[in-house]
């Protein structure tokens, strides 16, 4: 598979997604550069998760093209998509850990399925990933039902990182975390992006994490990307919805001190 668009990790062109007559994503185009953290914001129920799930092939699209690392994405049964799956890691909103496996087995699962490794090596990798996301190696023997919300997200991130993917998709990684844990999570994502050169596609409502970690922010409204750019530019955007989003009562902390 040749890399046709080396500077872009994800290219979405003219995408249409809908359920029945209800169109959720309406001729949307979006490019994500390699090595950047892109935050996606949008109204609740406005199609952010739908966009992400379409990119990873879970929701069939009605039109348009999606490329991830230069390879076109079809639905989940497509061979191309399956080979692309080795190059992305996904953190679902609820974690989506396999409840019948322990934390360690969860992290090893993608390794076991895609590679042939000795058990000792896999244990070592799992422990390394656990420590990377700030968990103790002892947590590896717990079951997902024994974990707190924050730990579940950390384990899910560890699993998403298990194959050292080039792209990580995060669906509301900080929702339901207290500000300290959310801050740690943000710092973790930033560190990983710096050290591993990850591309991060993050769906979030957390203004603080948008402000601190995201290189660029894309705003999704009415099924389209209405604004995209660094946080500073978005704050100056004239689009009504974007203004309402970033200039509401809850976003006062984002305003530059001078104004």
């Amino acid at each position: 598979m040749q890399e046709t668009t080396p500077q872009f990790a994800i290219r979405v062109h003219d995408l249409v997604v809908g359920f029945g007559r209800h169109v959720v994503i309406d001729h949307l185009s979006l490019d994500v550069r390699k090595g950047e953290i892109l935050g996606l914001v949008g109204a609740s129920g406005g199609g952010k998760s739908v966009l992400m799930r379409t990119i990873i092939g879970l929701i069939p699209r009605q039109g348009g093209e999606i490329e991830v690392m230069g390879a076109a994405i079809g639905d989940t049964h497509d061979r191309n998509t399956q080979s692309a799956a080795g190059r992305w890691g996904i953190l679902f909103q609820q974690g989506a850990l396999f409840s019948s496996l322990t934390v360690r087995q969860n992290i090893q699962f993608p390794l076991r399925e895609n590679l042939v490794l000795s058990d000792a090596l896999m244990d070592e990798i799992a422990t390394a990933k656990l420590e990377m996301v700030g968990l103790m190696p002892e947590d590896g023997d717990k079951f997902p039902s024994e974990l707190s919300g924050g730990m579940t997200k950390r384990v899910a991130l560890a699993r998403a990182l298990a194959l050292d993917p080039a792209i990580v998709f995060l669906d509301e990684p900080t929702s339901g975390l207290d500000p300290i844990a959310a801050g740690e999570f943000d710092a973790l994502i930033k560190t990983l992006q710096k050290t591993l050169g990850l591309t991060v596609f993050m769906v979030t409502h957390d203004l603080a994490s948008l402000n601190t970690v995201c290189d660029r922010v894309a705003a999704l409204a009415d099924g389209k990307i209405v604004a995209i750019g660094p946080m500073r530019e978005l704050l100056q955007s004239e689009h009504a919805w974007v203004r309402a989003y970033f200039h509401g009562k809850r976003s006062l902390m984002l305003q530059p001190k001078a104004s």
Partner: protein
Amino acid sequence: MSRRATSAGHRTEVVGVADNYAGLIEEVRQVNRHNPAPAPALNPFVARVNDIGRSAVGATEDLAVFLQMLGSLFMAIFGVLRRPRSLRLTSLVYQLYRVGWQAIPIVVLITFLIGAIIAQQGIFHFRKFGADSYVVDMVGILVLRELGVLIVAIMVAGRSGSAYTAELGSMKMREEIDALSTMGLDPVEVLILPRVIALVCALPILSFIGSMAALYGGCLVAWFYGGMGPAIFIARLHDAVSVTRFEVGIIKAPFMALVIGIVACSEGLRVKGSAESLGKQTTTSVVKSIFLVIVLDGLFAVFFASIGM
């Protein structure tokens, strides 16, 4: 109250409200202004026709889902045949243990009781016209040909089918199945194939064990209640029952297992986000698989009759 007065043409004013309640009164005044437009009442006849149409569409949908699952199962089987290493052996063995080994006690108990009851009823009624020795024929044929496999299949549908639906449904709810597919794995191959294969292997074995237990129950009743010794019972059984009878019963088992497995798994995958839908699909799964098992049994009866077995 004030709204009703206003609509009746009076002017209202709320007086004497403490400051801290004024906000609440104002908030209440703001809400609930618009009643949702009532749904247009349908002509009852049209509504009925509408319902029938909807359930017909639902039934074809069910059939489509069933066939789709059957198709993807076969695809998965071919995939596994090409790459035998990709079969989930651990999962298969575990499922076999669960639906096979752990089901034995309850299956034995129930079929034992059924056999005993048939024998008791048979002796009680046949005795009136002195035909009580034919009880053995009745128990033998009924158990080996029809009841053994049918009762075991119904119990397995209730016990293991519902478990499958609930498991897959909760996995679906927690996005585990989505996580699997985004890792480039086929949920049918990883989750469903081992479960269905386990069921297809376990049900014939369980029906065999169940039939034996039922015959044992019948034999005991014949001995203590009917006064017919085990030796006579076995000798009569030997005359009355041919191997074909037994074959007819046991041949049906894998097909019934396939139906139960497919229904249970596809209902599990149809679970939507809520816990209520999980419960609903589990119920649907059990009802539907028991219904289909009985229909299948009827079809087999017609089939075997026409080929003279």
